[in-house]
Structures are given as structure tokens and as C-alpha cells.
């Protein structure tokens, strides 16, 4: 069973995404901010991370940066899930080494496509 770490500050989205992924057969770990997310990532070494960009204090970019710096977590694929409409923001994330992005609001299919694509690349 693959493990997905969700870093998302909005409670409803976090919980709904968790449920959707659990129904799809994933084990899910939650974090509601960047710092928590980094702790969870190093502790559980998930197979994939879904991360919001606009997070309080430590934002999605910093999470990715720290993640890639740490040899333990450097390989974990990260997908940004964002409400941002600025292309430049997504581009910045992709340039920093994100593996994909999903725009809010997303439907299940879009999310699963992005997750499966990233996991396939790893395998």
C-alpha cells in the first residue's frame, strides 16, 4: 500500500482529499502546515506528497526545498495542489523540482491521473 502525505491548511480539503485517497486504496498522512509536513515526511518517508503552495509560515516552496536537501526525502515525488491562478507560481514550483501540479477545484480523475503519473515515473 502506497503512502501519501497531504500538506494542506484547509481542514475540509485535507479531510476530503484524505478520504478520496483512502477510497482509492492509499494510506494517508495529514499535515496542516509546512513544518508539520516536513516532520511527517522525514518520519514516515511517504511514497508521494500532495502539497499546497500557500501555507502559513513555511510555504510550499520552502517545503520542497528542504525536502530535496535531505537525502532521506530527496527522492519523494511532490505534487502541488494549488488555488493559485498565477502561472508564474506553478512554473516556479516546477522549476524547483516539483513532479506535477493540480489546480483547485480538482475532480478525482485529475488528482488520480497526476498521482499515478508521478508514481509510475518512480517505478
Amino acid at each position, binding site marked *: 500500500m502506497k503512502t501519501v502525505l497531504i500538506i494542506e491548511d*484547509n481542514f475540509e*480539503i485535507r479531510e476530503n*482529499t484524505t478520504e*478520496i485517497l483512502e*477510497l482509492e486504496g492509499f494510506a494517508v498522512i495529514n499535515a496542516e502546515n509546512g513544518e508539520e509536513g516536513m516532520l511527517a515526511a522525514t518520519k514516515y518517508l511517504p511514497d508521494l506528497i500532495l502539497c499546497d503552495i500557500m501555507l502559513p509560515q513555511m510555504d510550499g516552496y520552502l517545503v520542497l526545498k528542504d525536502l530535496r536537501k535531505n537525502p532521506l526525502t530527496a527522492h519523494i515525488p511532490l505534487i502541488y495542489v494549488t*488555488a493559485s491562478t498565477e502561472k508564474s507560481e506553478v512554473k516556479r514550483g516546477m522549476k524547483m523540482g516539483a513532479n506535477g501540479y493540480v489546480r*483547485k*477545484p480538482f*475532480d478525482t480523475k485529475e488528482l488520480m491521473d497526476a498521482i499515478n503519473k508521478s508514481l509510475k515515473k518512480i517505478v
Partner: protein
Amino acid sequence: MRNEHLISLESEAGFRVLFECATIGILVTNEKGSIELSNPCAEKLFDYNPTELFGKPIEGLIPQSLRHKHTHHRESYFANPKARPMGLGMELYASKKNGEVFPVEISLGHYELEGEMLAVAFVTDITDRVKAKKIVEEREAWFRNMADNSPVMIWVSGTDKGCTYFNNTWLEFTGRIMEQEIGNGWAAGVHPEDLERSLITYHDAFDSRKPFRMEYRLRRHDGRYRWIQDVGKPTYFSDNTFTGFIGSCSDIHDQRMMKEELEFLVRQRTTELSDALDREKEMNELKSRFVSMASHEFRTPLSVVLSSTALIEQYTAAEKNEKINKHLTRVKASVSNLTTILNDFLSLDKLEQGNVEIERELFDIAEFIQPVVKDVHFLRKKGQHISHMHKGEHQVLLDQKKLRYIMVNLISNSIKYSPENTAINLHSENAEGITITVEDHGIGIPEEEQKHMFNKFFRAKNTGNVQGTGLGLTIVKRYVELMNGTVGFVSKPGEGTSFIIELPQSRV
């Protein structure tokens, strides 16, 4: 006596040559006025034969009207003889043998010979000089007359910078007389605020012998100051000797006032426009921020709605409840609709801010259209069928995302505005360029509204309660134009509409 004179002159050969060859007429008379001696020049001047003048009264060489006065002058001279010019300050005239009068200049001298006093008159014909002087005087009078009648004010200055002449127009303007104005008198009429500046300009130009142009206020005869434009130029004699300056002035008060008023109005209007522009810019920024904020903030609750819907769908899948499914479909469609609207607002705002760039990539257009059609399938009404035909080369170099938006928009419009059981036909062709046609058999566009179809927020009257923002086609047109293409349509109300997009093929 005459012979003795001749002998005494002959004895002085040098003096004789002088007498004979002099180009001045020499006449010697005795106290009674008889001519005792005349030289060839004098004879020639008065048109007499040699020796013909001898013994003739001197008054015979004087115009008749003046003769009677001369007798008296002659007597006075002999009473007090001395070398002097004759008739100082007067115009003198002489008379030829035939009575022709001509102007002369005469100097007088005297000597005594054997107890007799003799007067010598040296006569010069000054006809040419008088003529030349007259011409100069007439010309000057003509110029002065012209200057005095000129509509512009004219002044003349000498080499010492002081003014020597002002024409009547100037004097009439200032209401002063020439004596008050000449020298530096004119400066008294210049507005105190303009005087220093004007004098500097004048002196600088004068010292460098350069033309100048200046404006200053000059007091008019009624005490009011008027703006004057003064144009000065150095003047020279024909031999290039500097003679001073000449200047002409025009009253430009009204023009200047008008110009100042106009400039004031222009400044005022510019400020107004710039303020309006600033306000508009501010409003635009505010609008952009709002659109961006709204778009961002709406997405979070929409995400919740959509993901909750997806979960309900999952949890109720087993129940196969048609009503639940119907409502779930509605919620999903509404979220999708709302997302499209948000995206449209955002796209248009970016287009208007000039923040949209074309990103071309090479792809297979036939393969590209299939999934696009699939994506809008769920919007179809009962019995609506979408077909696609492609002709020509499959590979195109276009902005896939923009083209996707264009296609989704046109196909969804065809679906929205066509009744059930109608066909929507897509044709694409890649030959010289790329042509894409989206043809439907829908309600069509009223002819009188066709020209507004690409305007922002415009919606045709026959759209009724079909939802839409009126932004889709505006964005389509802008995207097509960004790719250097054109978009148009052919439509007949009640029969249908065909949108045609033509895009140039960019080479790799």
C-alpha cells in the same frame, strides 16, 4: 592794362599752367564788376568762347532773378575783402550764356594790382553733386515715408547702442515724441519686470552683432502695457562698416494672451486627463486584484464542494439512486460552470494587462481534438452528435492550451445554442495554414447583432436563459489574434452557425 596783366602772368609760366589747366573756373573782376580775366574752365562752364567774357559784367553770369542782389554783395565784398567761401550755407546758382541755370560752389579771394583791387572767384559746377544729394534725400524720404506708414513699429540705433530713430507707428503707440524716445528714452516705456532681461538681450546681441528676437511689455499711450515682439538685426554699409541695429516690433498682446490662456487650458486639461488616467489605472489595478483574489478565494470552497460531491458519489454508488445521481451531476456541472466563469474573468484580465504569451509546441491536431470533444461530451443534450474530420498534415505548431480553450468554447457554445438531436460538425484542415470550422444547426445569431459578437459581455437577445458571461468569444478572438490568426462566423437565425478559425502555420 590787360596786356600788362597778361605779361605778368606769362612771366610766371608755372602759374599760367595752373590757371589754364585748372578744373575749377577762375574769374577775376574789378571793383565795378567787369570781368578782367577768365580761365578756359570758366569759359567752358559758362559756355563762352575764349576771351568772350573779357569786359563783361560779372552779373551776366548770375541768374536774372538774383542779379540785383549781387551788385550789393559785390560792393560789400570790395569794402571788406577777404578769402572766404561765397554765400555760406546758401545754395548758389550761376547762369550760362544761353540762360541755363546750374548750381555752383564759389570761393572768393582778392589781390591788388597797381592800386586797383581785384576779386577772384573760384567756381565749381556742383550739378552732379546736387543731383546725387537730391537722389539720396528723395530715397531717404521715401524710406522714411514707408517706415512711417508701416503697420509695424520700427526703430534704428547707431553704433553706440543709442536709438536714433522711431517711426510714426512707434510714436503713435507710445504717445511720445521722437525726442523723448531717442537714445535710451524708449526704455522708460518698457515694463519694469521686463526691462533688465530685454536690455541684456539687446546689449548681448549688439556686442556680438547678432540678430535677436525678444518679447516684452511696452506702455501704450493709454498707460496700458502690451506685449511686443521685437526683432532686431545689425545693419551695415555697403563696405561692411557696422552702422548699428534696426528693429521692428509688433503688438502680439492678444496672441500672447490667447496662447497663455490656451496653454493654461492645455495644462489644466492634461492634469485632468492624467488624474483620470491615474484613477483608471487605480481602478484597473483594483479590478485585477479583485479578479485575482476572487478567483483564488473561490477555488478553495469550490474544491470542497467538488471533493465532497465526489465522495458522496462514491458512498452512494452502491445505492444506484437516480435522484441522488441527478443532483450530483448538477452540483458537478455547476462547479465546472463556476470554474469556467472564474477562469474567463481571469483570462480576460490577463489579456487586458498584456500578460498573456503564446507558447507554441508541436502536436498532432487530429489527436488533440478527440479528447477535447470527449471533455465536453457531458454537456451534450439528448441526441446531439459531435463529429470531426481532418484533412492534411497532422503536425501543427500552436499554443495547445489556447487552442484547447478556443475549441472547448466554440463546441460548448454549439451545444448550448443547438436543440436536441442535432449534429455538430468539426472540420480541421492543415494546408497553407490551419483552418478549423465548428458548424452547428442551432438558433443562429440575429443579423443585426452579429457585429457585436466579439464584444466583451455581449450576449445576443435570442440566448434567452442559456447561461453565459459574454466573455468566451472575446477571449477566443484575442487568443486567435495572439497566434496571428483570424476568427469569423457565418450564421443564419434558425438554421445554425459556423465559426471559422484560420491560423498561420508556424515553421519549426
